[in-house]
């Protein structure tokens, strides 16, 4: 193969059943079509037949992939992406920041694909070209924080580890008499990075994630459950080979220009996503409060979700991903009068946690009050409420759980209890009242260790609603499942016209994805613009980069890829087509693996009942419902028009053979499309 730049041209395929590692070398043409990251991962799900309904997501045949892209490494905002079939039996693509992504490139790999199932707990150690499967029984059962610190010291580069050679005679006699050498050799460096699962992933909680640096997550769609099903506790990487670039000077020039721009980005550099804070509630009216029964408090005096308040109350240290100046993650130590929470180390919370396991669980109202009442607490009460949110974030992180679907699940249970549709007896005696962090703590233990009712809840929000609807013979229960396409809706609502348009969640390639892009296009009904936004996001996830510094990349993305890869003829259109391919493949994946015969009824319409039938009760957008309360228009006019613009059929949204051919993916997806057209 000709020399590749940007990418390394190698993917390690680890078969945990046989304990073997093979090297996959994708042809350059594949990189040209899919770039890397998410699009490349989806390509392999088709190429390796994971798309087949016969492949059990939690069985040994499923394939879990960790992938990076051409700018991951020396590029700004390094991120990694996991791609697999989720336990929910739909596509699972999840990205995460952190140094591990860059480290994988430095080790000389574009990705790791994991198939099979180990007979006992293992972890994968990658030290440059050497990929080893090692015993992980000493860390099985531990939370992600502890695992990471233990495994970091077990994986050192070859030059960082040596037996002792010093003798006392090497020192001066006076020195040797004072402090003879301990003869421990080399081993102090800690430069490895770790992706690991917590007990949630080990016990295959469907929404378990893969965590690095204690708090950064491949957060959604449950890659951790797939990892746990393979008895794989962690992937630990140490790379020393660097990142090969076609035009290094140009590449670094672009990186420095992006950094110069980022350096003035006061918003991200101050509080990260916590800076969105109260704006979402009081201006956009789109903040989840008590399972989305409210989206703004009647009294705009709740400050605990403001970045500045959090900073004053608890922020300790800002942490950046490699080559990023936005440093959007802040660590905190919880200060609380409640010994359960006091002293816990965690992060911020970020925006999604703030909503999904904050307001959504009723943490911010004083006891006995509802969000419609005036706020009567003090600043200390606000700080204690913040502590509950931070503690719940910490629990989810350390167990390795997605707090979006997890938050949606806990809020569902709380609302069902509020409406007396279930009783504490249905939850093994746990009385899940709004704002009760101790009850949440108990409930999470049951879920993570799959005890009693926890075994049902571990299948996520939608399955839980379905279970109770059947158990109680009450279909109304499904109305409180705040899930789109069977996965928890993140902390952005579609009822308020100031936030997202419902079409965004209906069309996006991953269920309930809040970062799918295309927002303005959907609001204006400009499907071409919306599609461009969506495709752009796929390109971002394939490079692999981050959404947050998007504005700083403006106009430089193609140049970055060119400088990295040396593809001088690479254009904006090539970038656009990567997203178009990924969207077509994701759509086919979800339809084919679930065996859907009428996708619109069985899949597209699976959105929260509340969107259309529960107007916002408070705030600047009081009375608003999604899509002006007109689901017919959404599903029967807008959606077919969008599908048509994508070159998909208007009745079912299946990419046509012509579209697949034009995108050059008819070879891997044509046969599957034919079965559904």
């Amino acid at each position, binding site marked *: 193969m000709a020399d590749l730049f940007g990418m390394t041209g190698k993917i390690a395929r680890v078969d945990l059943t046989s304990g073997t590692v093979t090297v996959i070398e994708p042809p350059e043409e594949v990189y040209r079509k899919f770039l890397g990251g998410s699009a490349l991962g989806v390509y392999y799900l088709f190429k390796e037949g994971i798309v087949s309904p016969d492949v059990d997501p939690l069985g040994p045949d499923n394939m879990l992939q960790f992938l990076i892209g051409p700018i991951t490494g020396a590029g700004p905002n390094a991120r990694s992406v996991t791609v697999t079939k989720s336990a929910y039996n739909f596509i699972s693509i999840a990205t995460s920041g952190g140094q591990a992504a860059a480290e994988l490139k430095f080790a000389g790999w574009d990705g790791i694909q994991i198939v099979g199932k180990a007979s006992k707990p293992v972890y994968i150690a990658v030290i440059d070209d050497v990929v080893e499967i090692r015993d992980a029984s000493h860390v099985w059962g531990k939370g992600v924080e502890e695992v990471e610190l233990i495994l970091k010291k077990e994986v050192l580069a070859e030059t960082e580890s040596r037996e002792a050679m010093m003798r006392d005679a090497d020192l001066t006699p006076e*020195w040797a008499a004072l402090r003879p050498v*301990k003869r421990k050799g080399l081993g102090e460096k800690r430069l490895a990075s770790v992706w690991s699962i917590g007990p949630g992933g080990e016990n295959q909680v469907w929404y378990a994630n893969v965590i690095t640096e204690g708090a950064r997550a491949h957060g959604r769609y449950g890659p951790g459950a797939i990892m746990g099903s393979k008895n794989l506790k962690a992937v630990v990487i140490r790379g020393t080979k660097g990142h090969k670039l076609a035009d290094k000077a140009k590449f670094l020039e672009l990186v420095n220009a992006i950094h110069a721009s980022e350096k003035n980005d006061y918003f991200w550099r101050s509080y990260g996503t916590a800076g969105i804070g109260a704006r979402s509630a009081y201006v956009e009216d789109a903040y989840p409060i008590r399972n989305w029964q409210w989206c703004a408090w009647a009294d705009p005096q709740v400050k605990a979700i403001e970045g500045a308040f959090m900073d004053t109350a608890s922020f300790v240290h800002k*942490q*950046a991903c490699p*080559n990023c100046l936005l440093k959007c993650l802040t660590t905190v*130590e919880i200060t609380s009068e409640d010994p359960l929470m006091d002293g816990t180390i965690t992060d911020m919370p970020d925006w999604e946690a703030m909503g999904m396991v904050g307001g959504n669980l009723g943490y911010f109202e004083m006891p006995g009050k509802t969000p419609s009442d005036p706020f009567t607490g003090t600043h200390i009460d606000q700080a204690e409420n913040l502590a509950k949110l931070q503690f719940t974030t910490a629990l989810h992180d350390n167990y390795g759980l997605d707090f979006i679907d997890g938050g949606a699940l806990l809020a569902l249970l709380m609302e069902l209890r509020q409406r007396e549709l279930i009783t504490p007896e249905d939850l093994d005696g746990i009385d899940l009242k709004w704002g009760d962090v101790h009850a949440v703590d108990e409930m999470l233990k049951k879920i993570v260790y799959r005890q009693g009712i926890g075994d049902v809840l571990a299948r996520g929000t939608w399955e839980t609603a379905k279970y109770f609807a059947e158990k109680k013979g009450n279909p109304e229960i499904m109305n409180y499942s705040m899930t789109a396409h069977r996965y928890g809706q993140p902390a952005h609502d579609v009822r308020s016209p100031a936030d997202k348009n419902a079409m965004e969640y209906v069309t996006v390639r991953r269920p309930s994805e809040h970062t799918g892009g295309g927002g303005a296009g959907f609001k204006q009904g400009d499907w071409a613009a919306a599609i461009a936004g969506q495709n752009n996001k796929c390109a971002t996830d394939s490079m692999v980069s981050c959404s947050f510094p998007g504005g700083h990349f403006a106009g430089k993305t193609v140049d970055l890829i060119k400088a990295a890869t040396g593809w001088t003829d690479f254009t904006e259109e090539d970038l656009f087509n990567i997203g178009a391919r990924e969207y077509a493949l994701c759509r086919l994946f979800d339809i084919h693996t679930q065996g859907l015969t009428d996708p619109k009824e069985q899949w597209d319409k699976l959105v929260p009942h509340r969107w259309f039938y529960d107007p916002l009760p408070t705030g600047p957008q009081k009375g608003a419902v999604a899509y002006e309360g007109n689901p017919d228009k959404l599903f029967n006019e807008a959606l077919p028009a969008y599908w048509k613009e994508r070159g998909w059929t208007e009745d079912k949204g299946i990419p046509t053979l012509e579209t697949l051919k034009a995108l050059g993916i008819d070879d891997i997806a044509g046969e599957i499309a034919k079965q559904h057209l």
Partner: protein
Amino acid sequence: MTRVERRDKEPEPNKEPTQSGGKISRREFLGMTGTGIAGLVIGGIVGREVFPKQAAPAAAPAAAPAAAPAAAGEGEAAAVSEPKAGYTLVFDPVQCTGCMKCAVACSEKYGAYFHPEETKNTVNLEFSRIRPMRFQYVDVINNCHYCELMEWAEGSNEFPCQAVCPEDAILTVPEGEGEAGYYGMGYKWIDQEKCLGIDKCWRCAEICEDQFASGISFDPISRKAQVCSRCGGDPECVKACPEPLALQWVPVGRNGRFYAQHPTAYAELLYRKMYNKRREL
């Protein structure tokens, strides 16, 4: 592999020390204050001959064209920085975000310096002398702290790594000497010909990890030891750092051994200070 040789040329005599950019050279400073040497024991300069600094070139060192990334596009005048003797690097682990800009700047400089051909297309942090290490919720910058032994107790006033080197490969380059674009200034340098490389000897790294910190790493191509030479008094890492006060280049007169910690010990102390937690790393 590029050979790196010492440039044992006499400093140019026609340069008056007081004309060096309006700055006061260290020797003058010592003379003027009359405090003697004891107050400024830094970087192993004491007891070694210090020459007046030569006029600084107007541009960045020619050997490292790609090595000033922080200056690009910031809207600030690219100030000509003066190489300084007797300074040290200090970092604030709360301000440091672990963004790696320092390591990229350092590795770009020294990768190009020692292996211009091999690193023409590669960014490789292994050439960096300064390495941020992330211990989950704390970040530690790992670098050489310039520890000095104490003669009255330990029988030597050398750097520990220097004292145990069987080949005398760890040099202290006097002010005005060293490679083109490198001003010595009393900072460390590894003699690439004398160093045996990690496949034969790692005494310098081992004594550092045994009793002080972890300031020595190894060049992945030549396999020789690497240590921070403070860029001869004008460190690239400081210029690249985007966080105010996270990494500073300051005239602090202390023996570096009192700053030095093993990276794990540093992180354990930070967990204790920042989060009131005991962690064993």
